[in-house]
């Protein structure tokens, strides 16, 4: 009997001893806190720099970012190939406070919070590289300014939260600042940051080396200021047409241009052609043989802006490693690799008609030489550089968007295989023109700011502030001449010049996320986004193609409310002080 009790006792005792031995930790020791990121011992600031790197990934990224569509497919330049794609909600009245396709509210406030965390903690790091800490801080403030600009161009004035980092338990009850207050804040931030930012030859904050490309330099800060002031002076935000606003917008653009001439920056219009795009033979049908060679050079030159990772025209890129995502999202569906997500962007006839003849005349103008049976003959070189139309050479054959052709097999009116709804596909940004059936990876940096914009910003602001003087002509003609288009005729009135500038912005910046905002800030969306957008129907009969302009889709734009996005519903409900935009 006793021995059982002893055995039982030993068993019990050892069990309890075992139970007390700790095999798990009271705290999770493997977690890393903020003192690991901003380390007071790290003279290189390795993790702090990584934190900043992550903020860069929040820059606006362009391309097919809205449900696999480009933003401009929600404007009058293009429509998506699928009937139900959400980007169209911008042009068919589908947006509501709970349904905003381009809802970057949260994304940008996340960036703002990250910047605030960075600014609040970076001083802990004993950074041992001269000038770096100030430059990092300045870059962070510019990234924050960029985020605010992204917010106000969509929603108008938004809450400014300064340097505050909210705590999880805090109640957020903060009013919207006005558009003007937000703009003032952004400009103040940019101005404060500018002295510390990288310039091409500035040695104070570290020498600019090629591996700094893609960072927020002083040129980028000035470009952002230029765009912001232009938007601020535009009819949407300047209902009284206060000329001083235009003047300061012109001055901001001029400042960038002057910096270039003073050789502090090395920005310039990209003027080199990459022959990888087109050979003479491939574009033979598009122009008379006499001008073929220079035409091909001009097309290649325009395409080269977007097919190189870096060039002097790009002031601020959204950086990416080489890839082929743009091609696979937008290529015509008849190519063998085509998948369901291909052929997304379908440019409209309205955009195609905007391209002038090579003689500088609009297609409807007398003496233009436009031939309806050969609609793509002798057009602005930027047309084949922007739009893929029937017969344009691409990947070892000509595009077939006539009814029953490889790229429109079911013909006009059908979207069975994801074929184009307008008869066009997008050409811009598509880099590879090789004979291969699969795409190799190419650089695809999205130009957030490029020098051409500065010139057109200047032309527009100066024309409004001072009229069409010589500086306006030279700014706009620089862009036209680059692709071999003739300069503007002399003696235009201010209004005529305004139209020319708007035309130039549309054809130069198609699909670069300008048109979508331009029609808003000029308050013309009510005109151009109401009614019907058109496409082309090409039919092939006995080897003869005929072209007919046809309806592609109906669009509607409610001018009472749609110039501003609705504030996301959740913001209005959860932040007591948040006011909704008018009529939403």
């Amino acid at each position: 009997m006793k021995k059982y009790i002893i055995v039982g006792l030993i068993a019990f005792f050892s069990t309890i001893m075992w139970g007390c031995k700790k095999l798990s930790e009271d705290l999770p020791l493997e977690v890393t806190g903020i003192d690991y990121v901003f380390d007071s011992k790290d003279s290189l600031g390795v993790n702090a720099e990584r934190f900043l790197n992550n903020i860069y990934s929040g820059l606006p990224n362009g391309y097919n970012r809205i449900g696999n569509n480009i933003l401009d497919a929600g404007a009058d330049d293009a429509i998506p190939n699928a009937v139900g794609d959400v980007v169209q909600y911008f042009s068919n009245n589908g947006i509501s406070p709970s349904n905003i396709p381009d809802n970057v509210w949260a994304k940008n406030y996340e960036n703002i919070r990250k910047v605030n965390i960075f600014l609040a903690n970076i001083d802990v790091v004993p950074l041992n590289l001269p000038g770096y800490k100030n430059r990092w801080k300045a870059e962070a403030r510019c990234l924050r300014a960029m985020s605010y600009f992204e917010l106000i161009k969509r929603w108008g004035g938004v809450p400014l939260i300064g340097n505050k980092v909210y705590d999880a338990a805090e109640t957020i009850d903060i009013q919207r600042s006005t558009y003007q207050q937000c703009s003032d804040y952004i400009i103040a931030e940019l101005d404060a940051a500018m002295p510390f930012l990288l310039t091409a030859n500035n040695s104070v904050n570290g020498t600019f080396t090629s591996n700094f490309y893609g960072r927020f330099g002083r040129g980028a800060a000035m470009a952002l200021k230029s765009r912001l002031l232009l938007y601020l002076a535009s009819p949407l935000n300047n209902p009284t047409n206060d000329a001083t606003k235009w003047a300061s917008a012109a001055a901001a653009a001029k400042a960038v241009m002057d910096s270039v001439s003073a050789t502090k920056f090395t920005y310039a219009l990209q003027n080199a052609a990459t022959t990888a795009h087109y050979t003479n033979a491939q574009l033979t049908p598009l122009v008379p043989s006499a001008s073929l060679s220079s035409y091909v050079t001009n097309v290649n030159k325009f395409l080269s802006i977007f097919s190189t990772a870096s060039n002097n025209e790009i002031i601020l890129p959204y950086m990416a490693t080489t890839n082929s995502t743009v091609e696979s999202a937008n290529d015509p569906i008849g190519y063998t690799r085509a998948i369901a997500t291909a052929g997304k962007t379908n440019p409209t006839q309205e955009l195609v008609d905007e391209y002038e003849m090579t003689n500088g005349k609009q297609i409807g103008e007398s003496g233009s030489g436009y031939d309806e049976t050969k609609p793509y003959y002798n057009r602005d070189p930027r047309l084949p550089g922007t739009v893929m139309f029937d017969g344009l050479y691409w990947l070892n054959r000509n595009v077939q968007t006539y009814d029953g052709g490889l790229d429109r097999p079911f013909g006009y009116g059908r979207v069975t295989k994801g074929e184009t709804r307008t008869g066009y596909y997008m050409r811009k940004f598509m880099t590879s023109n090789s004979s291969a059936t699969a795409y190799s990876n190419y650089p695809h940096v999205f130009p957030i700011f490029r020098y051409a914009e500065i010139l057109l910003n200047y032309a527009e602001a100066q024309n409004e502030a001072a009229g069409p003087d010589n500086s306006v002509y030279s700014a706009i003609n620089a862009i036209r001449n680059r692709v071999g288009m003739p300069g503007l005729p002399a003696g235009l009135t201010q209004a005529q010049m305004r139209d020319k500038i708007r035309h130039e912005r549309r054809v130069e910046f198609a699909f670069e996320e300008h048109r979508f905002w331009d029609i808003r800030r000029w308050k013309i969306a009510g005109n151009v986004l109401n009614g019907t957008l058109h496409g082309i129907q090409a039919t092939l009969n006995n080897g003869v193609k005929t072209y007919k302009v046809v309806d592609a889709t109906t669009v509607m734009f409610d001018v009472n409310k749609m110039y501003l996005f609705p504030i996301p519903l959740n913001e209005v409900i959860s932040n007591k002080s948040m006011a909704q935009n008018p009529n939403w």
Partner: protein
Amino acid sequence: MKKYIKILALFVALVASHSAFAQVGKTISGTISDNSGPLPAATIFEKEFTNNGVSTDENGKFKLKLRGQQGIIVVKSIGYLSQEINVSTKTIVNVSLKEDATGLEEVVVLGVGQTTKKITLTGAVSSISGTQIRQSPSASLQNSLAGRLPGFFSQQRSGQPGKDGADFQIRGISTYSGGTTPLIIVDDVEVTSDQISLIDQNEVENVTILKDASTTAVYGVRGANGVIIITTRRGASGKPTLNFKNETGLQTPTQRPVINDGYTTLNLLRERLAGLYTNPLTSYADYFSGDNLQHYLTNDDPYNHPNINWWDEVMKKVSIQNRINFDISGGNNTVKYFVNLGYLYQGGLFKDFSEDQGYNSNYLYNRYNFRSNIDITPNKSLKIKIDLSGRFGVTNEPNDKPWNNGGTTFQYLWNGELSSFLYPIYWPNGLIASSSSSLTKPNPVANLMYSGYNRSYGNNISAVTSANQQLDFITPGLSANVLLAFSTDYSFSSNLTRNSNEILAYTYDPATQRYNPVTANLYRMGALTRSSSSTLTKKNLNIRAGLNYNRDFGKHNIGGLALINRTTSTVLPVGASTVTLLDPYNIQGFTGKINYAYNQKYLLDLTAAYNGSDRFESTKRYKWFPAVSVGWNLGEESFVKDNLKFIDFFKIRAAYGITGNDNIGTTTFAYQKTYTTGASGAIFGETPQSYSGIIEPTLGNTNITWMTTEDFNAGIDMKLFNNKLSVTVDYFRKLTKDILTTPGLIPSSFGGALPPYNLGRVQNRGYELDLTYRDKIGDNIEFFVNSNLTFAKNKVLYRDEPAYLYDGLALTGKPVSAVFQYTYDGFYQSLADLYTAPRLAASTPLSSLQLGSVKYKDLTGDGIINANDKQYIGNNNPNYTGGLSFGFSYKGFDISTLFQGSFDYIINMNRGAFAYARADRVSVPWNLNRWTPVNAENATFPELSGSAQNGFDGSGSYWSTFWFVKGDYIRWKNFELGYRFPSSFSKKLHVNNIRVYANGYNMGIVYTKLPTSVDPESALTSSAGEYPQQRVFNFGVQFGL
């Protein structure tokens, strides 16, 4: 630690003062019998010293040496009324026990090794005996519980061998995040929910479910979802009893897709193409040009104009299930044993295409079970249990998905995606046919023949030892016990596969009259590749020590319990991306219980557990989980006893308590925030280069803790009319609080990711009803009828949802498994209808909508149909579940059967109705009643050309109440028909007894509203591609040696 020491000290003190009291008394002997003869395994013990007892041998004989002075012995046997006999004047005692018709002496198993008598039970508990479980030939134990136990909800999603176990909950669902599966305890040791289906039915003595706080509170932080307690069989004294059982079952699917033949489908296709304004003659010349269609009608050219029902081609008519069991039990007063060996084989439904390839790629399941339960009683006051058990399973599956581009063959069969007219199985020269287009599905036969298999092995061993020491020398009724359980779980997989690009199949090109390989330039079959991986390694350790007290003082009965327990589990999830998920995980706590009964009439039960889990921050780990329950045996009161003679037993009871659930849906250490490197960095440089990034994680919330459930239960137990009718009625109300929820109503201007908080609330209310009638007709016929019904309805009370424009979009106020979809509003019947009906946000009339398309209700009234009109349309979990069983026995025959049903829920029955989302698919009879201008009034299916807007493109973007219909069903779940040969016959064969029987599982669906051949317990979405549920028709023979 201090607490351990105190208890240890107490324990040592108690043990040390032992054994001074033993006395010598006289020895009595005798025979215990019932009205049919001697009764083995009855227990006889002294009333004064309850640990001084013996049990009868196989001839009902016993011998007992008395220690006390009173001279009163108690004779007990399960299923009989116990008797007290004064033996002060006798040495030979012969007792005849009476059967306990009331069942009130029946022992009810409670948690942590506790049992109680039915009459003194104050909680809500249901149980089912192993015998009843064994009437169902399903391979998974939980499938045998459906319809048997009030409060038990289950949904069997699949019939796949080795994976056919149902999902189950007790009293429905009470939370929208975190675990809803009950805690499962096998012989006092917790197992995971997937292991319950590995348990051999032959090992099971009893399955009990604990449903209310008074019974689950002892499990504290783990009790909120209810507890399933499984006890295994144990040996009884007597000569060894050997049982051998062999069962063979025939498995067939309960449902199969019913499809139209190729010719009918092609005619529908032609109509669809016309609707799309395309010319069938040019776009599908192979089908429609010339006399092609005629060939499909006459089937005179099976190679070029095939008509194949793939289901018939790849499936066997019937597959085999086999089960063999061998058990021995027996023992004497010192050692008792029960040993079981089990083997189960479940065959797969596919034809054995791979046989000639030298391997088996069919679905199959093999399971080997082993259990040895040993009870040792070294002396009269000490009981030791040593249980060893093992479960070894092998599950085989075809390597289905690569060849199928990610889908399973069953998915394509159910969805009708395998065209019946695209290609034959083999070409005339024996080459295997298939299609090369990515838009059509490849030949499943090539897949089953060449793709190889995926095989997974699960090995599971556990050892449970426990000891119980009577401490009567300190005070009578006191005992101490310890338990140590260890289990380990190891699984790995072994695969033999062939790359889908290296499988030879051919298309035929009539122009060149050549057979071309589907994969270009592939002219030989690729090699098979063997691969393996270990998938899980898990260790579980459970230790428990406690004190028990139970004693009668006259009419007063007092019981108590105090115990410490600790469970540690360590998991190495090989290859899992979330290693921290299953880091060391410890639960420990203290449980105490006091119960008091006066004259078995007034009952009071107090339970409290102080319990913690290290999933939470150190100050948030422990909490009290108290419960109180009361009972009143009203039937014992004279005003009932004397006036209402038909009432034999009448108890009312109520319980209230708080239980917890630490399975809140987070990882261990979720309360901390961790900055992780490598997250989206930046790219810089004229030659772009990546630089890594680091981000602020989701903010931490050190306050994260378990969810708690306030649980109220009230019930009535009655037995009426000479115990023929038993009634149990329960009402319950659960309020689950602190459900871990990420706040939705927070401005994004905050800028960070908020952690989840304990803030959600869900209410779950319902009732249960259980009625049993049992009677005899004459002497030989006994019969019973049982019906039970459970109603449980939950509602989300609060969850901090993001703001919705319309109330109908919020989950708050709706059931946890609410479905939000469009509301069907008929078909577009006229052009005017197309133009005036609310506009689909994504469509322009005429270009994408057609007459006969599905029209949706504009619930928001804004003239536009968009996501805001997707509102609450129903609940995917049944609110009602119930069962009806009845049976009778006559001499050696016994027959019983069970019907089970679930009601008041909706499911998506789109399976097989997808025809014409793509041209090369099959159609179902339902499609024939499509909308056409002629059939506009009577159509039950939309017109065929539109797809997305009609909701049958499979994308789910336009699903509506047209597709979601009531899933209510009644199923003939089980039957059993058995015959026990008379002993005179079995003696001739030199065995003790022989029984032959036939039983069945899932015999058929008696009632369903579904218009297509979908099993009403199927998963919510069709992409699941589940293995069809199986009907098992089983024959068995059992020998007792």
